[in-house]
């Protein structure tokens, strides 16, 4: 077996891509092969199963009625989907955003999802890739490459900052997912590895400092709508980059800044449900009510 290089930050990833003349998705596959746990077929098959489960989670979220465990959420994705022709953002963006909400609703109602990078931010990546892929006739292999590209970005963020709301706030969850999706979408549209990192950097900058403040500590409010804005963030950043816009601050520096901001965020605003939206009177009432449902 050829021994492959791995990477720990964006600069290393770019230099592998330049030296080997490969896209980020291929560099990600090779990094996984360098762990010597799976062969190429195994890696691609595992990703194919993830893609299938993601596709199914969108279908279930849009076609079947979802009722979250608390009954707070469940049909917002359907409402936006039905309104997609009338939106200012346009049909394609509306379908992507509605799909992101659909997957998060499935997650909230104990359905099957793929964490990407977490369960709370699981709607963004599948929505962006699969809806874009369907609208532009991409085949499965291209979407799998998209997932691998996104994986590379997530690996760099996880290694140098965090992807957990409890340690980095929502910027680390839906921010990371948006950065991953922005980069993946850019590769699928023919963008260079450099452009992918610009898109990821802009997506992270757009939500720098976003707190994790779930009502009653549950992955419902505001998480489902934060997945919506995360998907929109990803699409917007990819569009900007495809138009020739660059991130003034390099990706690696943005990741470190995000890590530092995460450390500065008060623990009340990191998944503890003590601050932010979770501390509002309405949220407190909802939390109290949930504590008293049955049994």
């Amino acid at each position, binding site marked *: 077996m050829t021994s492959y290089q791995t990477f720990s930050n964006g600069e290393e990833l770019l230099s592998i891509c330049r030296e080997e003349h490969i896209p980020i998705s291929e560099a990600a596959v090779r990094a996984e092969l360098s762990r010597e*746990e799976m062969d190429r077929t195994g890696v691609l098959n*595992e990703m194919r199963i993830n893609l299938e489960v993601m596709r199914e989670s969108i279908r279930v979220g849009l076609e079947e009625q979802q009722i979250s465990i608390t009954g707070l959420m469940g049909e917002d994705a359907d409402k936006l989907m039905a309104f997609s022709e009338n939106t200012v953002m346009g049909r394609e963006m509306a379908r992507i955003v509605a799909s992101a909400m659909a997957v998060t609703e499935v997650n909230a109602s104990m359905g*099957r999802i793929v964490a990407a990078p977490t369960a709370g931010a699981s709607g963004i990546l599948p929505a962006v890739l699969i809806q874009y892929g369907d609208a532009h006739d991409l085949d499965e292999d291209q979407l799998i490459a998209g997932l691998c590209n*996104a994986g*590379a970005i997530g690996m760099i963020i996880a290694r140098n900052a965090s992807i957990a709301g409890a340690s980095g706030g929502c910027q680390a969850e839906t921010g990371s997912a948006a950065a991953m999706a922005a980069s993946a979408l850019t590769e699928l549209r023919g963008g260079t590895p450099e452009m992918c990192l610009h898109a990821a950097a802009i997506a992270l900058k757009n939500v720098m400092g976003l707190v994790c403040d779930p009502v009653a500590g549950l*992955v419902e409010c505001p998480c489902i709508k934060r997945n919506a804005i995360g998907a929109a963030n990803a699409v917007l950043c990819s569009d900007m980059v495809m138009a020739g816009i660059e991130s003034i601050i390099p990706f690696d520096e943005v990741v470190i800044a995000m890590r530092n901001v995460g450390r500065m965020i008060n623990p009340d605003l990191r998944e503890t449900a003590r601050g932010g939206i979770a501390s509002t009177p309405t949220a407190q009432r909802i939390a109290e009510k949930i*504590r008293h449902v049955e049994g």
Partner: protein
Amino acid sequence: MSISIFDIIGPRMIGPSSSHTAGAVRIGQVANRLVNGRVQAARVTLYGSFAETGRGHGTDTAIVAGILGVNPDQGTIRYAKLLAKEADVDIPVLFSDEEPEHPNTARVYVRGEDGKEYTYIGTSIGGGRIRVTSINGMDVSFSGEYPTLIAFHQDAPGIISKVTSILALEKINVAFMKVFRSERRQGACMVIETDTPVDEATRIRIVNNVDGITEACTL
């Protein structure tokens, strides 16, 4: 250790939370694996964050699903209470406001068809992984990720080597092993995590042939 791409794109799981849902299923599964055959009765108490946010995360449903043998990635988790009714087992779930040592803690009582009873404490330690910290009053520590032999015995020399030699004869490789003892009862407990399961015949041989073993169970 380098991170895998499947730590980022994955795992495939039943939502909403790896610690409060997937981990809860795994804690419940310990009960299912401890009893021989069907679960006849069970009772669950949730503590800490499990008690506070468990209802909204489906922790109560998830743990019942696990007790009934459902896996963390199976869509049937949410119907656990129906499954319990169908199986004619009543599994009450209580929410305690007692402060546990670990925020995500559950105490589970289970009884099998053979009348054997177990009470254990399981904690969900993140990413769907768990740790059992107590069984039948004895402090222990194991993950449930491997086939596990739990043998209660007198605190006396020679017992451990007799047990491991029976495992060796059966070509069962030991992955991890720990011995715990309680000063109060002068009793001890060995927890042996193995690569292949310890079958019922081997378990019975250990109980019958090793002096000082008071009881042994497997999962």
